[in-house]
């Protein structure tokens, strides 16, 4: 019943008519990796909502997002970590730029950076293992910030891997509660993301 047209004839001059046309590559089909974006945004109510809403609506999966004020009045900073291929993350960056309150977005994934996050872990302890836990916290450059008869709250900061490692170590004692801030990032050396924001 139906008749479909033959594929359009005539490729570019010189292309053999019988050869199958090449397939066009889709943007965003590359290797996934963890990216770290630093967004400098106007410190206004609702800006976090705008960023979060955009990332959700555009199908970008945020791993972590940390927001804080900066040393400059009216300027906030977000550190966003997300998985995606380079093209997809570039698309996320460009979409963020469409937000009126976003001043600058930088993908610092390939730059030398310091990336730290902070975790508080409430570890279950007994009289018999308390000393062991305290020792472990000390060895991992953590800090004990609260002690009770049954628990110790340890504070640890470091790279994601360091925090992961610490959490894995104390897990055998029993974790009652865990909170992590998500990474914050700063580029090493003489550059300043904050100063790069033109006002």
């Amino acid at each position, binding site marked *: 019943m139906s008749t*479909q*047209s033959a594929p359009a004839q005539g490729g570019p001059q010189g292309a053999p008519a019988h050869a199958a046309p*090449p*397939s*066009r590559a*889709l943007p965003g089909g590359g290797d996934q990796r963890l990216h770290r974006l630093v967004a400098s945004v106007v410190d206004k109510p609702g800006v976090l909502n*705008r960023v979060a809403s955009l990332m959700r609506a555009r199908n970008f999966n945020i791993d972590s997002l940390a927001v804080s004020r900066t040393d400059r009045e009216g300027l906030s900073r977000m550190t966003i970590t997300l998985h995606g291929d380079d093209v997809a993350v570039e698309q996320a960056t*460009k979409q963020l730029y*469409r937000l*009126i309150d976003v001043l600058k977005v930088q993908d610092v994934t390939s730059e030398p950076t310091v990336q730290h996050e902070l975790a508080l872990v409430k570890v279950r302890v007994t009289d018999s293992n308390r000393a062991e836990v305290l020792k472990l916290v000390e060895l991992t450059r953590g800090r004990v910030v609260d002690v009770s008869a049954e628990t110790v709250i340890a504070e640890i900061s470091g790279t994601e891997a360091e925090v992961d490692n610490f959490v894995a170590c104390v897990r055998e004692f029993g974790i009652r509660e865990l909170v992590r801030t998500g990474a914050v990032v700063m580029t090493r050396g003489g550059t300043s993301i904050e100063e790069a924001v033109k006002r």
Partner: protein
Amino acid sequence: MPAAGSRHAAAIERAQREMLHEGASSPAVRTGAHGTRQRIGADVVCEALLRQGVDVFFSYPGGVILPLYDVLGDYPELRHVLVRHEQGGAHAADGYARVTGRVGVCMGTSGPGATNLVTGIGTAMLDSVPIVAITGNVPAALIGKDAFQEIDINGITLPMTKHNYLVRDADELPRVLAEAFHIARTGRPGPVHVDITKDALQQETHAGHPSLDEVMAGLPGFRPTMDGNHRQLKLAAAEIAAAERPVILAGHGVLHARAEGELRALAEKIQAPVAWTLLGVGAIDERHPLAYGYMGMHGWKHVNRAIQSADLLVAVGMRFDDRVTGNVRTYAPYARIVHVDIDPAEIGKNVAVEVPIVGDAKRVLAALGPMVEPVPAERRADYLDQLAGWRKDSEATSWHGSGAWRDGYLSADYVVQKIGELTDHEAIYVGDVGQNQMWLARYAGFRHPNTHVSSGGLGTMGFSVPAAMGAARGGTGREVWAITGDGGFQMTLQELMTLVQDQIPVKIALFDNKKLGMIRQWQEIIYAGNYHSAHLLGPDYLKLAAAFGIPAVKASRPEEVDDAVRFAQGVEGPALVWFEIAGEQNVFPMMPAGKGLSDLIEQWGGPDE
């Protein structure tokens, strides 16, 4: 703490009284014209509209926006069109903006008034149309308390506006409104929503209006790139120099930037055919020898064929939407792509491109023009001959123009073509959504920019009549035709009364196939003829029009078309032509979903389709 707490409680109490319109908190005590009373937030709104050059806006009152209506009488220069549904107001603002290039304005009250605006705001968003939508909200102290008609409209419009605001303090209004208009019209245009609490509308204020410089200084994150990067332009020129089979793709961005002249000049200089998207209709006069045609899902076969065989696409102000590309993997397989767009996020989003150029279409094309080598006509002779042959072939097989379809019923494409001819192709034609929209884009014959209006991105049925209403209020001097299916018409026909009340001269061409035509077509071709809900009952449209007081006429045969169109043209105010068209006519060609531009279905069933 207790003091603050009781202050808070008092504010809530005051707000609750305000909700009941109690007391004289509004400037009801004024004695005369606006000079003799205090200036309040509502005045700031009116002043701001006038400063922005707004001459008309489309609105509907309600509790929390009444303070604005209370002062409107003091601003006779500001024409208010009382729509019959806020969605109609938003589409009207949209239609106004599309044909004038100015910012359209619509308003509504909180809650249902605001949610009714949403479809219109979304329509403007997906087609990058500059509108400012203003809503009232409950008094600030009641926000978040589920007060009467309170809804988080800011949360609702956030992902579908270019930017939005909630204003609780009248002193902020001058800045916010100036920003709203600046953002709506600058760079890639788009809708901005400003939500204003009732108490802010009533609050006395002395705040002055900012200058444009002050507005821009307050928006450090908003600096659209207008000029193309010189290195990229050089790369584009090199691509063009090397191309043997270039095609220029024109989108809405060309019209937004008013870049028709620059587009034509480039096409002529490099002897490249121009194809256009649905929203790019009118970017080039269709009579121009290099004007090649409408592309995409229901585009012309010859156009899609040219794209599929091109070695270079120069895409300007378009976003490679799925309706344009079909399956991206098979899209324009031999083509390198130069992509010009003012929004960097559009470049590389749907297709990977060789040369991205961020900038305003007019400025980029103006800069690119002198950088490209003129191409002598002989060099393109073979190519353009081949395209001309393809065109002849496709126009002959895409059935149209013979007047009657099966059983003598009117053929829709014939009617569209006739409307185009009888209006000398000089009118503004506002399509709805569905088959009628495709017929309009294909057969009316467009000669001027911004004379074709269509909801392309959101595909909003019911768009046509209210958008035409706004277009007719735009003062372009052109006749305005709303082209609509019977389905879309039944979605927003309440605006007929607005047309009558304000004597807005919209000519409505109702394409009544007694079907949701496009749905029926898909069901026939994709769902094995399972026509669930495709049949659509409608009223006697002559009686309907008569009830509204709109002169109307019916045409069911080809020989009745001319007189019917002439009849509508002869009416001074609004008029309706009821075209009873064939019920089972399809729009061809058609690219089935998931397929590519080379997989067009050209007919189905009998050869008379």
